[in-house]
C-alpha cells in the first residue's frame, strides 16, 4: 500500500477577490511523480502558491493534508521545514543577501526543525559544492547575491540547487523547464530525476512534453479554469502536445 503525502480535497482559492481555484481535488502518494499541464491563467501557479502558503492567496474552502498535517494551520516556513518545496516560476532577487548565507540559513533552519544540529561551515561547503557542481553552478555564483543579476536559466538552476540541498518530501516545480537552453534543460531534468526517489514525490507544472522524456510522470493532469478536467498517464501529454487544449473543451 502506498502512503499519501498530499491530499487536496475540494479546494477553493482566490487572489484579490477573484476566484481562481474552483473545487480542485488531488491525491499524491509517496514515490509518485505528477505533472500538471494547462493553458495560461488556468490556475497552476495559484495552486502551487496556495500549497506553499503564499499570504497573497486566500484559501476559501476545502482541505489540504500534507503528511498527515492540516496545511492551513502552518506558516510557510513551517511547511518548508516539514518538507514542502516550491521551485518558483519567477525566482525572486534578494539584493545584498549572499547565496551562501541564504542557503546555509535555509538548511540550518530545516535541520533545526528536524532536531538535527546545523552543519559546520566545512561540512556545509562540501555538500554545497557537490550539488552546485551537479547543476553547473560555479563557486563564483555562491559568492553572489541570491538571484541578483542571474539570467533566467541561472535562476532555474539555482532552484534545482536548493531542491537538492533541502531534499524535501514533496517538490512542486512550477515551470522549472521554461526558458532553458538545451544543455540547461538536461541539467535541470537530471537534477529533478536524481532527486526523485521512492521516499519523495514530485508535482511538476509544465507546458512542454519534452521534459517528460527525462522525468517520466506516473500521472498527467490537465487543469482548466481552476480545476483538473482530466487525468491520465504520460501518453496524455503527447496527445495534448499534438492536439492542444481545445480538443479537451470540445470533447
Amino acid at each position, binding site marked *: 500500500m502506498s502512503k499519501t503525502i498530499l491530499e487536496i480535497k475540494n479546494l477553493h482559492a482566490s487572489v484579490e477577490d477573484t476566484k481562481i481555484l474552483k473545487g480542485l481535488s488531488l491525491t499524491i502518494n509517496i514515490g509518485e511523480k505528477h505533472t500538471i499541464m494547462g493553458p495560461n491563467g488556468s490556475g497552476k501557479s495559484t495552486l502551487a502558491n496556495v500549497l506553499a502558503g503564499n499570504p497573497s492567496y486566500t484559501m476559501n474552502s476545502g482541505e489540504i493534508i500534507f503528511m498527515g498535517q492540516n496545511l492551513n494551520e502552518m506558516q*510557510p516556513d513551517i511547511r518548508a521545514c516539514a518538507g514542502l518545496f516550491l521551485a*518558483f516560476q519567477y525566482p525572486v*532577487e534578494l*539584493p545584498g*543577501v549572499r547565496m551562501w548565507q541564504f542557503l546555509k540559513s535555509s538548511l540550518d*533552519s530545516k535541520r533545526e526543525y528536524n532536531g538535527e544540529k546545523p552543519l559546520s561551515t566545512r561540512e556545509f561547503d562540501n555538500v554545497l559544492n557537490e550539488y552546485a557542481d551537479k547543476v553547473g553552478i560555479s563557486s563564483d555564483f555562491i559568492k553572489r547575491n541570491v538571484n541578483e543579476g542571474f539570467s533566467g536559466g541561472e535562476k532555474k538552476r539555482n532552484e534545482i540547487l536548493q531542491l537538492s540541498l533541502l531534499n524535501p518530501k514533496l517538490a512542486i516545480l512550477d515551470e522549472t523547464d521554461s526558458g532553458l537552453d538545451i544543455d540547461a534543460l538536461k541539467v535541470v531534468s537530471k537534477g529533478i530525476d536524481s532527486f526523485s526517489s521512492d521516499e519523495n514525490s514530485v508535482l511538476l507544472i509544465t507546458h512542454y512534453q519534452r521534459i517528460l522524456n527525462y522525468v517520466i510522470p506516473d500521472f498527467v493532469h490537465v487543469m482548466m479554469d481552476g480545476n483538473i478536467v482530466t487525468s491520465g498517464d504520460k501518453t496524455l501529454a503527447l496527445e495534448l502536445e499534438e492536439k492542444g487544449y481545445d480538443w479537451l473543451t470540445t470533447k
Partner: protein
Amino acid sequence: MKENNNVISRTTELENDNYKWGFDFKFNPDNAPIGLSEDIVKLISNKKNEPKWLLDWRLKSLKHWFKNQDNEPKWANIEFPKIDFQKIRYYSSPTSKPNPKSLDEVDPEMLAAFTKLGIPLEEQKKLSGVAVDAIMDSVSVATTYQKQLEEAGVIFCPISEAVQKYPELVQKYLGSVVPYSDNFYATLNSAVFTDGSFIYVPPGVRCPVELMTYFRINELDTGQFERTLIVADKGSYVSYLEGCTAPFRKNNQLHAAVVELVALEDAEIKYSTLQNWFPGDTNGEGGIYNFVTKRGKCQGKNSKISWTQVETGSAITWKYPSVILQGDNSVGEFYSVALVNNYQQADTGTKMIHIGKNTKSTIIAKGISAGKATNTYRGQVKVLPSAKNARNFTQCDSLLIGDKCGAHTIPYIEVKNPTAQLEHEATTSKVSDDQLFYTQQRGISLEDANYMIINGFCKGIFKELPFEFAIEASQLLRVSLEGTVG
C-alpha cells in the same frame, strides 16, 4: 584571573574644590541643580578645575546662547514640543568617587550595567584589542588599555583630563572645527559640556588599537553634552568607535554632543558610530533627542576623514557629520544606515565642503523606515571656487517597511568651480511580499527573512565598520526590526 595592569588611574581631582575662579560653591557636589545659568557653567568648570581660558570660553558661549535662545533651528523635518532648557540638569556624576585607579575600584553596579549592555570594559571580553573609555552621564568611568597607547605616544583620555594634562593641545584645537557660535546646540554644548573623549595621535603613528567610547545617559532629567576632540597629526592613523545607549525613560532626554576631528597632512581618521539611544516606546513616548554636531576638517593635504554610522535609536535625530576638505587631495567619506521605527524621526545627512584641489568625497546613505516613522536624508555638497577637480559621488537609498512610514531625500548642491564632477543616485524600494515569501519558502521565519533582506540592503555600509562592530551593528538592526513584519 583579573588583569588590571592595563588600566591607569585618572588624575582629574574632583575633590579639589578650591574655588579658583572666585564664586560660591553652593551646590551638592554630585548633582548640580536643574537649570541653566552662569553659576551652573562656573560650577561645571570649577568641578573640573579648568583653566581660566576655558571658563571664559564657556561663558562666552553661554552669553551667545542666551542671546539666541529663541533661534532654535526649525528647518529640519522633525516635530517635537519646545524644550525647556531650564528643566534640564547640566551636570550629574553617577558615583561619588569618579576616579577609579583600576577596574577593581569601579562601582560593581556600574560594571554590571556595562556588562549588561555588552560593553567590553574588561580586557578579556570579546572586543579585546579595543581601548574603551566609558562615559555614564557626565563622567568618564574607566579607561582601559592606557599603557599600550602611552607606549605608542597616543593620548586617549577624557577631555577634562586632557584640559589638565595637555592644555596647549586642547586650547589649540577646541572649537577650531565647530566654533562656539556654530549653531544653537553646539553653542549650548560649548557652554555646558561635561565630558567626552580626547585623542591625539602623534606624527607618523598608526594607533595600535581601535579606540572606543561608550556613552550612556542614566540619570533622569539629565542632558548629556559630551565633547569629543580627535587630532591626527601628520601621517598618523586612528580608528575610533563610539557606542551609545540609554535606558527606558518615560520623558525625553536631550543629548547635544559636539565632535571635532582634525586630520593634518597625510593623516587618516576613521570614525564609526553605533547609536541606539532609547527611541521612545511604541506609542512614541519618551526617548532621546539627539541633536549632534559632528564635523571633521581635512586640514592637511592628502588627509582623509571617514564617518560610518549605524543609527537605530533616539526619538529624534538631528545629525549631519560633515567634512571640510581643505587640504589638497583630501578625501571625505560618509557611510550611513539610519533605521527609524514606530514614531521615530530622523533628519540626518552630511555636508562635504570642497575647498582644496582634487578633493574627493563619497556619500552612501541608506535609510530604513518602518511603522509611522519618517526618515529624511539631507545632504549638502559644496564646491568652492578654489576646489579644482573636485569629485563627489552620492548614493541615497531608502527602504520602506509597511505603508505608514516615509522617506525623503533632500540634496543641496552648490558648485562654484566648473571642473567639479558630481554624481548623484537615489532609489526608494520596499521589502516586497514576494521576497519575504520566497525566503520563508526556504524554511526561514518571517522575522528572520525580513532581517536578512534588510541586512542585505545595509551590507555596503556594514563592511565599512571594524569587524566586531559590524556584527554588533547587524545584531542591533535585528533587535530594532523586531515586530516590523507579520
